[in-house]
């Protein structure tokens, strides 16, 4: 559903304090909750360039999260976010591949003794 709504209003917003550099950004992700927030936070925390990464759900009646990234050494915060999303995507891909491989193996193994 979020794909459709994304056309109407932005799914992702960037909020920055006045005078803050690009390394300290709060991303507002609409229609997201702990599902993406927590897993993405983990991935980004794994990045050594990131000094701080965290998120909050603003209010139980709002469906958005504020995702904060602060980086070391003036790296723009967008980079770790992008990397994190990519890595998460890759992880999922790997999990998916492994899962499907194992399920197929299991199914074959199940069929064999039956024959």
């Amino acid at each position, binding site marked *: *559903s*979020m*794909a*459709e709504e*994304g056309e109407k209003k*932005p*799914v*992702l917003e960037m909020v920055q304090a006045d005078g803050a550099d690009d390394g300290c950004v709060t991303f507002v*992700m609409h229609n*997201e*909750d*702990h*599902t*993406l927030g*927590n*897993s*993405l*936070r*983990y*991935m980004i*925390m*794994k*990045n*050594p360039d990131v000094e701080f990464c965290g998120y909050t759900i603003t209010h139980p009646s709002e469906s958005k999260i504020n995702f904060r990234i602060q980086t070391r050494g003036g790296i723009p915060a*967008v980079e770790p*976010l*992008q990397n994190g*999303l*990519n*890595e*998460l*995507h*890759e*992880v*999922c*891909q*790997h*999990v*998916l591949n*492994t*899962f*499907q491989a*194992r*399920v197929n*193996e*299991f*199914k074959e193994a*199940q069929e064999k003794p039956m024959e």
Partner: protein
Amino acid sequence: MAAPMSNVEEIRSRVILGEFGVKNVHTTDFPGNYPGFDDTWDMKRFQKNFRIDVVHLDENSMEFDMVGIDAAIANAFRRILLAEVPTMAIEKVFIYNNTSIVQDEVLAHRLGLIPIKADPRLFEFKNTEEEASEIDTIKLQLKIKCSRNPRASKDSSDPQELYLNHMVYSKDIEWVPIGNQADVFADSCIRPVHDDILIAQLRPGQELDIIMHCVKGIGKKVAKVVNSRLDTCSREVLRHSDLKNCVKLGRVRDHFIFTVESTGILPPDVLVTEAIQVLMAKCQSFLSEMNSVDME
């Protein structure tokens, strides 16, 4: 960190079940936390360590172990399984006649809880403004009337024998194909997953005449997920003071047991696949969003 090496290893990889509480609950292996460890994300290392073992798999449930992945991501899969896997469900109930004692809204609620066997992947999300069409809606009908059984013996007091159609089950729901649905879904007959869900009880003269529209939606309780390796979680040993000091209960931090129970609409392995894909879709959508923002 002055802690000895073995201790650090334990903090990093084990959750300790103490007598009065759980210790080391959080993931701490982030870069910079432990000298001498390189905790930077390494795809290769992840791929090497990651493992899935399927323990059990049938039509309705499966159990598998997922090892070598952080709780954050494993939990994301669980949350998606619970809340975000799309399914087909009765969304609109048009009650033309309801003379049973079940109130209309209660009846509608009951109908809404019946899982419908239809592959949601073959349907689209319904656009609220548009009319129901063959690509996003399934039409079902429930038309039943209770009557006396003419062959019942006179002195019987058993409703089973006295009345006909006095119990309305989910099997009484019929599929009314719209457009070309009859051809498209000819072989995958659309109907409720279970035949024996009691919807209402009727008495002679009472009848139900209902049309239902099913659409694709999210938010289904399909799965339950377990995260553990040790089976003795009653911590019985800790009650015996002599054993207390000898035993240390721990759990492997990155080992998860998933038990997925499907409502029967989709097989559980498909559900898990779907769930993973949903998370991937989320990443993808933000990536593309960022790209489009960059381009502007």
